[in-house]
């Protein structure tokens, strides 16, 4: 169960932090230049952090108590593949959900 106090700290903290990043240049930095190496690392934050978050959940899913499970693994691969080649986020989500639902329905 999620603790209510923790939840609100996260909501408010994440809200302030996210606004801070959106406001950083528009409000404070203005037209001043950023060091190129900083911008270069900023460009890779999302493509690094999101996969790092997901990879352990794919290999050791919460729903199975951390046991590797082939249906979830295949659904994950299919979702990623559809997203990568079609560039269509809803299509990838629906395909992945269908594979997961059907797979667990037949084998589960």
């Amino acid at each position, binding site marked *: *169960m*999620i603790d209510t106090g923790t*939840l609100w*700290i*996260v*909501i408010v*903290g*994440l*809200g302030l*932090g*996210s606004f801070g*990043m*959106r*406001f*950083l*240049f*528009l*409000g404070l*930095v*203005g*037209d001043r230049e*950023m060091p190129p*190496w900083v911008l*270069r*690392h*900023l*460009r*890779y*934050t*999302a*493509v*690094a*952090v*999101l*996969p*790092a*978050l*997901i*990879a*352990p*959940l*794919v*290999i050791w*899913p*919460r729903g199975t108590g951390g046991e590797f499970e082939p249906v*979830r693994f295949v*659904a*994950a691969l299919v*979702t*990623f593949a*559809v*997203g990568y080649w079609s*560039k269509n*986020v*809803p299509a*990838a*989500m629906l395909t*992945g*959900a269908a594979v*997961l639902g059907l797979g667990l329905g037949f084998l589960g």
Partner: protein
Amino acid sequence: MAGSDVMSSYRRGVKDGLPFLLVIVPFGMLFGVLATEAGLSVFEALSFSVVVIAGASQFAALQLLQDQAPVLIILASALAINLRMAMYSAAMTPYIGKLPFWKRAVAAYFLVDQVYACAALDYERHPAESAAQRFGYFLGVATPICPVWYLATILGALVGGAISTGYGLDFALPIAFLAMIGPMLRTPAHVVAALAAVTGSLVFAWLPFNLGLIVGGIIGMVAGAETERRLEARSAEGTRT
């Protein structure tokens, strides 16, 4: 008339923002569903979407909250996902940096992925527009996107309680993220960053407090930045010879 110019820019923004409803509605609803599954009330789920207004980081924070990760790790991980918004902010500054302070603050709040993507494209196409017209366009794009994000969250949270749990719903979140990651990988450097991050997070999964995520993320960022630097150096050499 300046006022009618601003209105026509606003209307163009609304038109450009509308197609994104196809993404925003299911995505917001999914957040609402998963938030109620995690034990959040409708009000708490809505607050999340209104205060944070950044889908990917909301999903990440929700997952880590369920994992009972320490608050600092949750905030660091979720904010790292939103670091790209500092880049959006930097990219918008030359176009709307001359606006009054409060308008820049409003723009900053609504600076979400889709609004940024539309504005970046539109400002380039209409270099002659005034900052006021650009602000009009900006709010135009945000008009269908942001309020619907809140509404979809409420709808999902209300429906969520009625959906029976089980059947791999634990995996809805990884599926949602994987669907988003695919289209993000547009260059070889993106692919290297993602692969390095995946490897790092798996190798360091044994670290306490979900630190494996932070370590994997940093490894991925450095790998991506370094790949980009080398590819640029190589192509610069190629043009010289």
